């Protein structure tokens, strides 16, 4: 209880409240601009968090990401262009509602169920994290190795492209993490005699490059989105209570799926939305209405992507394994602020953890009034020409990278990773897997080598302990999963061909 009161005091500090409000506005604006994703919003925030108190720093990340995931629905609904990848799954549906003259209903559903999803996700974090922390205290390097490895495999599993390309991206990320002398032996590796590479490649410039610079590069070769027609909106929350009652089941299913996908390392809000939308269509009583402007899928997927945000913090806080690309950035900030991830965080810094929960709840509550204002102003915000927004983003990339280490080499890295991200995305290599490899490489190697030294080069102890055995089984399951899907798809296709022939 003392910890809780202390947490209230921490969150009620004026600098934290100002940080929450400012980052909320920032997240809403960035999320609503097509091409600027929630991850990019978070990455560009990092240099700002250097100068904030630990709680305020975490608060900016939580608030900005939650707002950006919601406001990505706005251009999706009004222009049929998703503001963030997390809204892409149900953009067509939302736009169909707008064309039927029900833009308020679609936007309101995005807002209302985003907030609910965020709050339910937070509750899952509150319940799950301490339980798992208890368990994690008994983990040794073997378990940590399998956890990290499982995390990497999950990231390749859920990528919406060829799993082999995803694994290749992940390996590329691991290779990047080998650079420098931060390995168990302290030997400089792959530094090519460049002193700047001795310290290794920092994740932040790599992330800024992959998520922000590559987006500016993409803007250079894609046509500008059309301007938004001005329109008057009616009441935005009017029918939401009715929707909540009518689609109670889909809403809860969306929340649960979002939470599960959020906890899986590497899979984030965009994946949660895709899975939930597909699920909603499959289990709906009226699947034929999907795609014609039916709110059911919006309810489920809108709740799902915001629920995944909060539960993504579970593995991040407990093990330092990012639950999605946003928490991959957040982990770096946590280390910088002395809130090193690990099970002891929940016992020794309990008040900080309570503060984190409170910030999540607070962010999702202020999302509703601020979101309504944002929807009403959307026409003006979206009028900002891309030629004005993108150059500023690029300048912020350069300055932000420079600020992380006060050296120009990071700016160069940002450019290099921008090119890498651009080429990879064009060719179907998922960049999220690359990022996860970079962030987790050191951890995987450290635990792998330490375990091998402990076991004298023997592989058997990796499977002997009960928890590590289970984790190992899950990892191999994840490795073999694509094969299963492939066989299932082939069978499905054969059945469809047979059906065509007879029908």
């Amino acid at each position, binding site marked *: 209880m003392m910890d809780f009161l202390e947490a209230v005091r921490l969150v009620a500090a004026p600098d934290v409240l100002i940080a929450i409000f400012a980052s909320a506005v920032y997240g809403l604006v960035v999320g609503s601009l097509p091409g600027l994703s929630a991850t990019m919003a978070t990455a560009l925030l990092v240099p700002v968090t250097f100068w904030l108190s630990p709680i305020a720093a975490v608060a900016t990340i939580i608030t900005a990401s939650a707002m950006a995931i919601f406001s990505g629905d706005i251009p999706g609904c009004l222009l049929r262009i998703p503001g963030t990848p997390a809204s892409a799954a149900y953009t067509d549906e939302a736009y169909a509602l707008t064309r039927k003259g029900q833009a308020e209903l679609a936007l309101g559903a995005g807002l209302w169920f985003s907030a609910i999803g965020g709050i339910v996700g937070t509750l899952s974090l509150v319940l799950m994290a301490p339980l798992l922390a208890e368990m994690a205290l008994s983990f040794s390097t073997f378990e940590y190795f399998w956890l990290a490895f499982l995390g990497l495999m999950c990231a390749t599993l859920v990528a919406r492209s060829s799993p082999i390309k995803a694994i290749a991206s992940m390996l590329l990320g691991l290779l990047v993490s080998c650079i420098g002398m931060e390995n168990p032996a302290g030997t400089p590796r792959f530094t090519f005699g460049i002193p700047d590479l001795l310290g290794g490649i920092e994740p932040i410039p790599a992330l800024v490059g992959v998520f922000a610079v590559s987006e500016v590069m993409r803007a250079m070769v894609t046509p500008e989105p059309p301007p938004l027609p001005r329109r008057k909106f009616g009441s935005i929350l009017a029918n939401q209570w009715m929707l909540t009652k009518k689609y109670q089941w889909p809403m809860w299913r969306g929340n649960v799926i979002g939470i599960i996908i959020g906890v899986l390392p590497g899979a984030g809000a965009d994946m949660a939305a895709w899975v939930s939308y597909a699920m909603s269509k499959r289990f709906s009583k009226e699947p034929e209405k999907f795609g014609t402007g039916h709110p059911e899928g919006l309810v489920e997927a809108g709740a799902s992507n915001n629920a995944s945000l909060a539960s993504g913090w579970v593995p991040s806080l407990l093990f330092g394994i990012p639950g999605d690309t946003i928490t991959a950035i957040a982990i770096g900030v946590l280390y910088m602020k002395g809130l090193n991830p690990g099970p002891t965080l929940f016992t020794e810094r309990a008040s900080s953890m309570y503060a984190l929960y409170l910030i999540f709840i607070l962010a999702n509550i202020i999302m509703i009034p601020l979101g309504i204002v944002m929807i009403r102003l959307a026409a003006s915000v979206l009028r900002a020409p891309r030629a004005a927004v993108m150059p500023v983003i690029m300048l912020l990339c350069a300055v932000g990278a*420079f600020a992380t280490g006060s050296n120009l080499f990071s700016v160069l890295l940002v450019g290099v990773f921008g090119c890498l991200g651009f080429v990879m995305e064009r060719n179907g290599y998922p960049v999220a897997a690359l990022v996860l490899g970079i962030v987790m490489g050191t951890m995987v190697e450290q635990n792998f080598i330490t375990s091998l030294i402990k076991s004298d080069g023997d592989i058997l102890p990796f499977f002997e302990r009960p928890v590590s055995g289970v984790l190992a089984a899950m990892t191999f399951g994840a490795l073999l999963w694509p094969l299963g899907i492939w066989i299932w798809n082939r069978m499905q296709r054969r059945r469809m061909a047979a059906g065509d022939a007879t029908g």
Partner: protein
Amino acid sequence: MHLSDRVTGGVLMVLGAAAAIAGSRLPAVPGQEVGPAAFPLLIGSGLVLCGALIAFGIGRSFEVPEEEEAPPGPSSSPWRPGGPRALVPPALLLFYVLAADRLGFLLTGAVMVFVAALALGARPRLAVPMAIVAPLLVHLAFYKLLRVPLPEGLLAAPW
């Protein structure tokens, strides 16, 4: 930069092989079986395997069908002849690295914003004010509020 799977797979194979060979040459830690070489060797071999699978098109059959439907929309229109324009942002970042210390942040930033805005199709009427205002605002936020030591160069900021 849309490349065939053969090219990207081949690049990955070469990269993996190079990493594995260079990794295996790293000096071992005396008295220990596993040292700094183990991890690069493992990753390098993995990359060679993945690269080969991709290059020979084995990964293609694993690809989820919905992914194949996606490209036509975005890939038909954006691939205008202006493809090399994608290289403008990294080139400008390189320019920043080379020029920032000599010209100072304000001038370098102005050049970057101006060129990028033009490349995105802005008229000079928009690009010129942008190039003046944006670096000043960024400088104000980062230099004054966040205390990032941005280089002064030829033109110092008024604060």
